[in-house]
């Protein structure tokens, strides 16, 4: 679908160039940016109807995968978090920046929106999650179909990464 959209933008651009061949002043403006008449206001109205998956709060959903229940102690285990930071930097930063959206969402504040089990399942079994968990599926669409890569973390490593997320 995205490719179709692109194609039509491309076609519009070409038409724009063709049309502008005759004039001189308009040509300058159009070079800067592609503008689609009326397109934006319509889009915006539609989007506001729904909270994007990344902003939704669902603390009861444990997701699907190897982790079915996990009780987080009140205190953060700093040593475990330090290990988690190391793993995160090695295996996750190609797509996730700590505090801003990149290829995927930022992990900062994730535990205010998701259960610890859901986070670990997303790390350990991303293929299953995007197939079977409706929220994960919506996230995949929100992030342009960019798949969450399974980086082969062990359960222990995923738990360490989770602990690190608690410190963010």
């Amino acid at each position, binding site marked *: 679908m995205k490719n179709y959209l692109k194609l039509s933008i491309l076609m519009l651009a070409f038409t724009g160039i063709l049309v502008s061949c005759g004039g001189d002043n308009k040509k300058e403006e159009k070079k800067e940016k592609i503008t689609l008449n009326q397109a934006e206001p319509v889009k915006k109205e539609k989007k506001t109807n729904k909270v994007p998956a990344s902003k939704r709060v669902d603390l009861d959903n444990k997701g699907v995968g190897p982790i079915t229940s996990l009780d987080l102690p009140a205190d953060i285990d700093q040593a475990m978090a330090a290990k988690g930071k190391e793993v995160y930097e090695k295996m996750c*930063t190609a797509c996730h920046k700590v505090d801003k*959206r*990149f*290829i995927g969402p930022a992990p900062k504040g994730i535990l205010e929106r998701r259960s610890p089990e859901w986070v670990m399942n997303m790390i350990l079994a991303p293929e299953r999650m995007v197939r079977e968990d409706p929220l994960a599926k919506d996230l995949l669409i929100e992030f*342009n179909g*960019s*798949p969450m890569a*399974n980086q082969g973390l062990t359960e222990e490593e995923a738990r360490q990464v989770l602990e690190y997320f608690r410190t963010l």
Partner: protein
Amino acid sequence: MKILNLGIGLLAAAAMMSCGDNANKKSSAGGALNSSAAEKVYVAPGEQDEYYAFISGGYSGNLTVYGLPSGRLFKEIPVFSQFPTSGYGYSEETKPMLNTSHGFIPWGDSHHPDISQTEGVTDGRWIFINENNTPRIARIDLETFETVEIIEVPNSAGNHSSSFVTENTEYVVAGTRFSVPVPQEDISIKEYKGKFKGALSFIEVEKETGHMDIKFQLLMPGFNYDLSHPGRGDSHGWFFFTTYNTEEASTLLEVNASQNDKDFIAAVNWKKIEEYINNGGGKMMPSNYAHNVYDHNSHTATSTMKKEVRVIDPTEVPGAVYLLPTPKSPHGCDVSPDGKYIVGNGKLSANLTVHSFEKMQEAIKNEKFEGEAYGIPILSFEDVLAGQVEQAGLGPLHTEFDDKGNAYTTFFISSEVVKWKLGTWEVIDRKPTYYSVGHLTIAGGNSREPDGKYMFAMNKITKDRYLPTGPELEHSAQLYDISGEKMELILDFPTHGEPHYAAAIKADKVAPNSKKFYKLSENTHPFAAKSEAETKVVREGNVVHVYMTTIRSHFSPDNIEGIKVGDKVYFHITNLEQDFDVPHGFAIIGQNNSELLIMPGQTKTSVWEPKQVGVWPFYCTDFCSALHQEMQGYIRVSPKDSDIELEWSLGEDVE
């Protein structure tokens, strides 16, 4: 090649035979038989095959991997030839694999794959294959299905009677087809007789690592050494080689090498020679040959030139070598699973000759010799003969065995496989092949424990078997069910290049060990970037190193400026994925070598020397995700004297 050895008249006979085969084919088509054949080879969607077949690519220089009984092609493993599909032989890491004493050789002629054995049974650890043209032996790791080692064989030329392993993979053996001056020297070709030698090389295989090292070369008389096989069971410790051109002709061999009524099978007692060497025997000869080793942690090959090789004169070691007269230019040299019989497939002989190991031992004990060749004792034909399969067909080439005491021999000229019984030498069945069969393969057919379920014949001529594809055709193979008394043709499938020989093995000996991806944490490549934080671009004079990473679906960095015309840019690409089957590719406009296909956790390097000023794109060649078409980047190339600073980035304007 073999066609040339046979007369034109024989070829005409082959053509006539083929016409007959065509008629047979038609008469057996259709009906209930056909549908049961379909069931036998049908591997339902999502199901997997029962056997791996590793089929030599011949002049493709590679090795192909098929499934049986489906005949589906799974992979082409690059071995002796450059392979742009993955970048093998083009990437900086793999170029050393193709180094030889003649320099970089981009091509090879691979022939006879053989799977490593433990106690006479295939163990599925490695597969060896020989290069015929510029003599080399390669070892392929069956965990990664990649070529991990290549050793050049000095003093050899036309490395054909290779690469067969002994019972415990103590040695992989490589014999020369062409005899040459040893060491090489500038002499007249007319001095062939007496001056030219045939080197039989015994390459030791290290038990744990598989590393190869030439233990010794036996410098035999100047015959052609065609094929070979190890003894097993009682005959373990011996190796058998067929010879032809015992006339020692150096011209018009088509006629001149077919004069003698009998040539020889050379029987080599390698255990005796090994003992001789361990007691200080043999002499080191100055030499120059390449030994290339690929390391799976650094993902890099190194090439070392070796400067000497141990040579043995067969007359130095009494009792080490005997010659067994064998009728008419024997080609295949095959040993029965129990090690008792040595089959010599005299390709110009009407009968198949089978020698007895026991009778050979007896004759040696009684010192009953018929003569000698260059000091090597010749045994008498009658003394060592176990039996003959009479008038079995025309042009016998190769024999394999099943687990029920039967042998299967291919006949090139009469285009058929003949099943016969060991011991009684009677013919049990014959089935046509389409057309002009060379080798045949039974899983474990050259081990103590053959698996008598399937046999496939690899043919030299295809003609009308498939839809025509112009003058050049892939060769055809036929799969037969051999579980019953009569062989049953159940499948035709095309093979790539020229499949001289193949080795087959039960899938469960190999599949469970197959690696899924390389661990990033074990990557020791000196130019690896193991996370995006480690990516960078470094200039050293006009050499630029780009430490780049890939993950679905972007390169990091993906914008680079400050490259100049005349620079030599090394793209070191590390694939950060850690999952099964997520390779990324790397291609850049004007790449004078090939793309790179990088497996998860791997680092590969492509050199790019930009010649034109401009902004040039690069992209991922392997469809990696829904955003694969977005996986691209730009590199700005400025004039040689430009002072644009080196800069690199990724996604700076992402909000």
